């Protein structure tokens, strides 16, 4: 039997984890992705809002419907060469009397890559199972709820909204290209339509899933050399005890409880 046992019931655990989730600072990430012929660089930010806690013995904390608030700033690069064939003015040579053979250089039109900024933000409701992690790191005992596996994120209408946003940002820019603008706009939108919701989901998933799959919610963090009493005066120094071991589990008797057990010397 551990020397110190501390338990919290499911309602208390809900309060505790709500507070802990609220204290997780916003997470940021950046990278590159591809959406069909479009190349996307992005920066992403995410924060969390609490859900409902279900304690499941012997070691699972299920948090239902916690919220992942996210925002993405994309810069989509569209290489017009994807839509337009290479266009070259061939070399022409003529013989000029007294001068000789004179040739013009071959001139090729290098179609530019157009960058289109697109921003979108939304939230996802996620249900995930967390395991209990106990570590002694840097002289401190830490207990955290660490997400198990990679939760499936359901993007739904967000994917369609991103397609619309890309189309809305892209179309006026392409229409402004002289002579061939309408063709480009129609072609780009046709490609977006072909990419569809599945393609956008495939783009968003790798960008946002790491925020959830790496989620760790702190539950306990105390130095191994624990101050039992602070300094009480010039002749009463602080009193320290050593936390020799820390254990964490979920028990289920008449009630589900999160239990921490600590051995001290």
């Amino acid at each position, binding site marked *: *039997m*551990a*020397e*110190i*046992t*501390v*338990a*919290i*019931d499911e*309602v*208390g655990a809900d*309060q*505790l984890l709500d507070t802990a989730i609220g204290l997780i600072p916003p997470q940021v990430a950046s990278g590159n992705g591809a959406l069909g012929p479009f190349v996307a660089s992005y920066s992403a930010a995410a924060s969390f809002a609490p859900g409902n806690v279900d304690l499941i013995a012997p070691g699972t904390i299920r948090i239902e419907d916690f919220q992942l608030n996210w925002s993405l700033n994309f810069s989509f690069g569209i290489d017009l060469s994807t839509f337009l064939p290479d266009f070259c003015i061939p070399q022409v040579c003529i013989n000029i009397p007294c001068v000789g053979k004179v040739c013009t250089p071959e001139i090729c039109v290098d179609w530019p890559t157009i960058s289109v900024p697109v921003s979108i933000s939304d939230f996802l409701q996620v249900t995930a199972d967390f395991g209990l992690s106990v570590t002694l790191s840097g002289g401190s005992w830490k207990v955290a709820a660490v997400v198990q596996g990679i939760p499936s994120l359901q993007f739904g209408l967000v994917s369609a909204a991103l397609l619309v946003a890309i189309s809305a940002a892209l179309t006026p820019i392409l229409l402004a290209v002289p002579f061939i603008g309408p063709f480009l706009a129609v072609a780009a939108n046709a490609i977006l339509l072909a990419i569809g919701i599945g393609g956008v989901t495939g783009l968003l998933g790798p960008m946002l899933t790491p925020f959830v799959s790496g989620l760790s919610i702190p539950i*306990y963090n*105390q130095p191994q050399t*624990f101050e*039992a*009493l602070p300094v*009480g005066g010039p*002749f*009463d*120094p*602080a*009193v*320290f*005890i050593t*936390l020799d071991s*820390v254990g964490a589990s979920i*028990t289920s*008797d*008449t*009630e589900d*409880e999160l*239990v*921490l057990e*600590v051995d*001290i*010397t």
Partner: protein
Amino acid sequence: MSLTEAERVFGGITEQGINNLLGAFFAARPRHLNYGSPGFVPSTTVAATQMGAIPFPGAPGGIDWAVQLAPPTVDLHPETDPLPPELSLGVNQLSVSTAVRLCVACETRREGERDPDQPDDYPDQPRDDRPPGKAKGTCFDLKIFAVAHLQRTFSPDGVVIVVDAVEIVDVEPSELEAVLECLILQILRAVLADVRLPLETLRAGAFSLTLTRGPEVENDQLEVYGNL
């Protein structure tokens, strides 16, 4: 039965845990076990607490005295360590056992004075290496048993041990035993009143707890209940 019962948070510490805390407290602050007048304790330090000598007419500077206690250990209800028949451990009680040494000075060597027992004329005699100002004590040791209960304290929120009764075994005559028990009861109460165990420590800093029930003593454990 769940640990939290009808409350949100439960905290429990075993008697071994409390003894570890008491051991840590008295190891860091031994002056709470050692008391004496200037003849025994020249000044208050982390190791000992200086008290006044007992004033008495005709005794210049008063009568020097000292009290030393061994670190107390507790046994929480139900009784595990046997108690003298005069004491019994009730519900929500704990026993405290310790030893006490009581000393009085029959003569005091003041600073700079030569020790009359060790004249320089006899250099082959073993020397008394006690520092100047230390009184020579006439002492005796007693084994102490007590029963106590726990009481809540505030600022910080915590728990303190309150001694209810003391028993000294095998002291004759019984009137002397009664006087010594009265004296030791007051000393032990005062010593343990200084040991305030914060709730934060009793739960090793886990969660937070606003006490709504307890402290209780049950199954060799101190238990507190509350809300976040």
